[in-house]
């Protein structure tokens, strides 16, 4: 009889403990999902209010010009994750050929990156943005040291490309390119880009970062557009 009553008290304690655990974790996960839903709608609203800042005429693009799905990527050439995503984004464009295009926007967050971005834009003027970017990403460790970008080393790495080096150096210092880079930085600020790469798929910011999430988001946009 005595042990039976004892068990009952222990049972009550366990029920109390377990139900509290369940309630606390439910509240925790509900708060997370509520916050994230709010963030997503806030992010979408932000882009809708700054639509002109998302895409700019003349920015480097890849993929079919009439593609109905546009990935806008804010990137820093010195950012390691951007380098890792470069072949992945290429895969997406290849896989959904004619349906997806990517537009690159500059966000030089790293120290010294602004000069490298100017170099890329100067190469863009000579129609060699993509081969230049491919070299810089592939050999990133040769021109970035402890997260500091060295534009001189980057310039040397581009020597195999058929570029007019003289013109490249002149363009890097030109007012036109300076304006383009500062325009991109301002656009990134107004779209609250805080980390690179930041992707926008048809005007919607990628809510959860990751390759899988990017692919899913692109596939959703394709089914909506086609």
């Amino acid at each position, binding site marked *: 009889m005595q042990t039976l009553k004892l068990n009952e008290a222990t049972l009550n304690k366990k029920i*109390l*403990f377990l139900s509290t655990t369940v309630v*606390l974790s439910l509240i925790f996960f509900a708060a997370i999902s509520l916050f994230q839903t709010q963030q997503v709608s806030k992010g979408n609203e932000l882009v809708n209010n700054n639509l002109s800042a998302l895409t700019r005429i003349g920015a480097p693009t890849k993929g079919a010009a009439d593609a109905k799905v546009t990935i806008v990527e804010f990137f820093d050439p010195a950012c390691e994750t951007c380098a890792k995503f470069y072949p992945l984004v290429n895969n997406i464009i290849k896989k959904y050929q004619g349906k997806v295009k990517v537009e690159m926007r500059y966000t030089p967050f790293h120290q010294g990156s602004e000069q490298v971005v100017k170099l890329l834009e100067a190469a863009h003027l000579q129609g060699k943005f993509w081969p230049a970017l491919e070299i810089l990403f592939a050999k990133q460790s040769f021109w970035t040291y402890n997260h500091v970008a060295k534009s001189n080393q980057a310039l040397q790495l581009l020597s195999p490309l058929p570029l007019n080096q003289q013109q490249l150096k002149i363009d890097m210092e030109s007012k036109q390119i300076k304006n383009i880079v500062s325009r991109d930085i301002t656009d990134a600020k107004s779209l609250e880009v805080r980390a690179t790469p930041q992707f926008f798929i048809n005007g919607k910011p990628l809510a959860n970062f990751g390759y899988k999430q990017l692919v899913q988001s692109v596939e959703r946009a394709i089914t909506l557009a086609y």
Partner: protein
Amino acid sequence: MKNINSTFSIPSSWLLVFSCWVIATTATLTSLFFSEIVQLPVCVLCWYQRIAMYPLVLMLPLALFPFDAKIIRYAGVLTFFGGLIALFHVLLVAGYIPESAQPCVADISCSQTHLNLFGWLNMPMMSLFTFALIGKLLFYANTKTKRGYLE
């Protein structure tokens, strides 16, 4: 008669330690929510308070099944030091301790607050209240046990 009653109902010292666990877990989940989900920066002093708060979430339940009153002693030490750091942090934010006296890394300032409810309730203040409340409950739990563990 008294004996039978106590076997039916849950003893108050158990309930007090259990309440401490609920408070510590709520505080832990709240701090994780703000740092990991909202992504507010975490300064060094916040980390020291976390070191005192987070272990309670795992330690206290171990002393609940079966009840082990010695936990009051172990959890009490953590609560005391966590409370001291929280007090220091509150005084720092309020400006009673000069900026140069703080052991913070350069990029995240401890004297800056990112969350202010009603204009005065910031994170270090909440932390201080939480540690004080846990300390108080542990003290009551101590008086309910036959032997005192807070000597």
